[in-house]
C-alpha cells in the first residue's frame, strides 16, 4: 500500500504510457478532438507528430476516423472526456467500432464526478453502463496512476474495442510501479471473512480505508479492485458470495448499470448472497469540491463502514 504518496490523476498515467507505447509501436496513434492538452496527450503529440491526429471538435467523426484507421491495422486511441467518448460518440462506437469488432481504444479522462468544478455537464456517471451493453466492448477504470499505466499497456496489447476511463482530479496511489494487471481479473487488495467490498477507479481507496476502519471494529473485509467492469471477473464475485455472502459495491458512477449492477447480475443468478450498492444516486451533480460530490451521494468511508456494520 502506497497511499501515503502524493495523489496523481490517472489521466497523467495515461499520458505518459501512451507516449511510451507510441515510441515502441508506430501503429499506435492518438486521435484527439481538441482536448488533448486536458487529456494529457501533449507528450505524444510533440514526440510523435507522425502518429498524431487531431480532428477538431468533432467527436462523432473522431470515432469514425479511428474505425477506418483500425481497418488498416492501426491501433488508434481516441482521446476525449468520458461524457463525450461514451455518449456523444455512442452510436458511432456501436456501429463502426463494436459491430465490426475493430481495434479502437477510447481513452477518456474526466470519469465520474472527478471534473468536480466543471459541473454536471462534464461529470460522467453513465458511461460504463452504456458502453458495457455494447457487444465486443471491454470497459476498464484503473484505480490509480500505476494501474492506469499498466492497464493502458494491456489494452494496447490486446485486440478489440476498449473503453478506458480516467480521473480528472488527483487520486491516491495504491499500487507500486511493478504491480501487474490482467484485463478482466480483479485485484484482491485485502482478504476478509465478514464482508466483501468491491470497488473500482477512484473509489478503491475508499474501500481500502473502510476495510481498515472496519478492522478496528472487529469486522474483517475483503477488498477487490474490479478495474474491469466488462468482462466482469465473475469468478471473483462468485468467490465473495460463496466465501462471505455479503457484498458492498462502491463506484463513482450511477448506481444504475455500473459496477454495482454488474455484480448484482452475478449474485442474483447465483440465488444467494446480498449486495448493497454505494454510488451516484441517479442524480446529476453540480459544481462543487470532488469530496463533497461523493459525500452528497454517500460515497464515503463512513457510509461504507455503516452499511457493513448493518449487513
Amino acid at each position, binding site marked *: 500500500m502506497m497511499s501515503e504518496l502524493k495523489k496523481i490523476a490517472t489521466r497523467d498515467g495515461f499520458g505518459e504510457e501512451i507516449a511510451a507505447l507510441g515510441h515502441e509501436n508506430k501503429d499506435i496513434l492518438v486521435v484527439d478532438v481538441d482536448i488533448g492538452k486536458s487529456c494529457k496527450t501533449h507528450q505524444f503529440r510533440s514526440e510523435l507528430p507522425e502518429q498524431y491526429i487531431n480532428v477538431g471538435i468533432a467527436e*462523432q467523426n473522431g470515432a*469514425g476516423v*479511428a474505425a477506418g*484507421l483500425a481497418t488498416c491495422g492501426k491501433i488508434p486511441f481516441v482521446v476525449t472526456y468520458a461524457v463525450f467518448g461514451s455518449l456523444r460518440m455512442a452510436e458511432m462506437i456501436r*456501429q*463502426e467500432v463494436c*459491430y465490426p469488432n475493430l481495434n479502437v481504444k477510447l481513452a477518456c479522462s474526466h470519469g465520474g464526478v472527478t471534473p468536480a468544478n466543471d459541473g454536471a455537464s462534464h461529470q460522467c456517471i453513465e458511461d460504463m453502463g452504456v458502453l458495457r451493453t455494447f457487444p465486443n466492448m471491454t470497459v476498464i477504470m484503473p484505480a490509480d496512476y500505476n494501474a492506469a499505466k499498466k492497464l493502458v499497456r494491456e489494452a494496447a496489447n490486446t485486440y478489440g474495442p476498449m473503453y478506458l476511463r480516467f480521473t480528472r482530479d488527483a487520486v491516491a496511489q495504491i499500487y507500486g510501479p511493478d504491480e501487474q494487471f490482467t484485463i478482466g481479473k480483479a485485484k484482491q487488495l485485502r482478504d476478509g471473512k465478514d464482508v466483501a467490498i468491491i470497488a473500482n477507479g477512484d473509489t478503491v481507496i475508499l474501500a481500502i480505508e473502510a476495510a481498515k476502519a472496519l478492522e478496528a471494529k472487529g469486522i474483517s473485509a475483503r477488498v477487490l479492485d474490479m478495474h474491469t467492469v466488462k468482462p466482469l471477473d465473475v469468478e471473483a464475485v462468485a468467490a465473495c458470495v460463496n466465501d462471505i455472502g455479503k457484498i458492498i459495491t462502491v463506484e463513482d458512477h450511477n448506481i444504475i448499470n455500473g459496477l454495482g449492477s454488474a455484480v448484482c447480475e452475478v449474485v442474483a443468478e447465483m440465488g444467494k448472497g446480498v449486495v448493497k450498492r454505494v454510488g451516484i444516486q441517479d442524480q446529476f451533480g453540480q459544481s462543487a469540491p470532488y469530496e463533497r460530490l461523493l459525500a452528497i451521494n454517500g460515497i464515503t468511508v463512513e457510509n461504507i463502514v455503516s452499511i457493513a456494520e448493518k449487513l
Partner: protein
Amino acid sequence: MKDISIKELENTATKMRMKVIDMIYKAQSGHPGGSLSAADFLTACYFYDMNVDPKDPRWPDRDRMILSKGHVCPIQYACLATLGFFPEEELDTLRKEGSKLQGHPSMNKCPGIDISTGSLGQGLACGVGMAMAGKMDKKNYRVYVVVGDGESQEGEIWEAANTAHKYQLDNLVVFLDVNHLQLDGTTDEVMPNGDLGEKFKAFGFDVIYLDGHDMAAIVKALDDCRAAKNGKPKALIAKTVKGKGVSYMENQCGWHGTAPNKEQYEQAMAELQAQLKD
C-alpha cells in the same frame, strides 16, 4: 484500369441491376431505389477502376469501397459476387438468417466489404481514416465513399469533410448520389440541401459535376480523380435517378425500401433485359 469498353460497362451495369432486382424479389425485402441509382458508379468502380483481389479480400494495398448509404448494399453484393468474392448463388440468401449478405453490409460476414455501415452519415469518417492510413503508410490505394444526398443532412458528413481537407486526402473520392429523394419525400420537401457541389468546394474539395448514369462521364471522372494528386479530396456530384432502369420505380419515393411482387419483378427484368446492347 481494366481494359473494358464503355458499352461493356453499360451492359455490366444493366446486369448488376438485374441481380439487384432478382435478389430483392427473392428476399421480399431490401432497397431497390437507391441500389439502382448507384449502379453505374459501382459498376465503373469495380469493373474498370478499382484494384481488388477476390482471392484476398483484405489485401492491404486494395482500393476501398464504402457504402455510407449502406442500405444500397444489394448493388455492391451483385458486383462482389460477379467478381468472385463469393459464389453467385449466395445472392439468393440476401437478408436471410445466417447469410453473408446482411440487410446492411457487415465487413466480418461478407468478403469484400471494407467497413460495416447502415447508420447514415458515418461512412465518410471511416473513409477518411482509411485514406489517412494510406498516406501514413505511403500506399497508393484509393478510397471511394458513396454518400446519398439525403444522407448529407447528417452533420458527421461535414465533420469528416473538414478532416479530409485538413489531411489533404487526394486519395479519397466521395460519390454524391443526388437522386433528390429520401424516405419521407423529396430532399427539397424534407430538408433542402442547396448546391452540394458548392458546399464541398467550400470544404476544400475538388468538385466534378456529372450525370451519374453516363458511363463515359463516370469513367472520365474516375480517371481525372486518379490523376489529380494535388492534396485535395474529390467529390463527384452525380445527378441520378432513384430506381434508374425500371420505369415504374424511377423517381418514386415509394421504391426506397419496397420489394417488387411477381408481376412487377417480371416487368422489371424484361425492361432491363431490353436495355442490354449487342
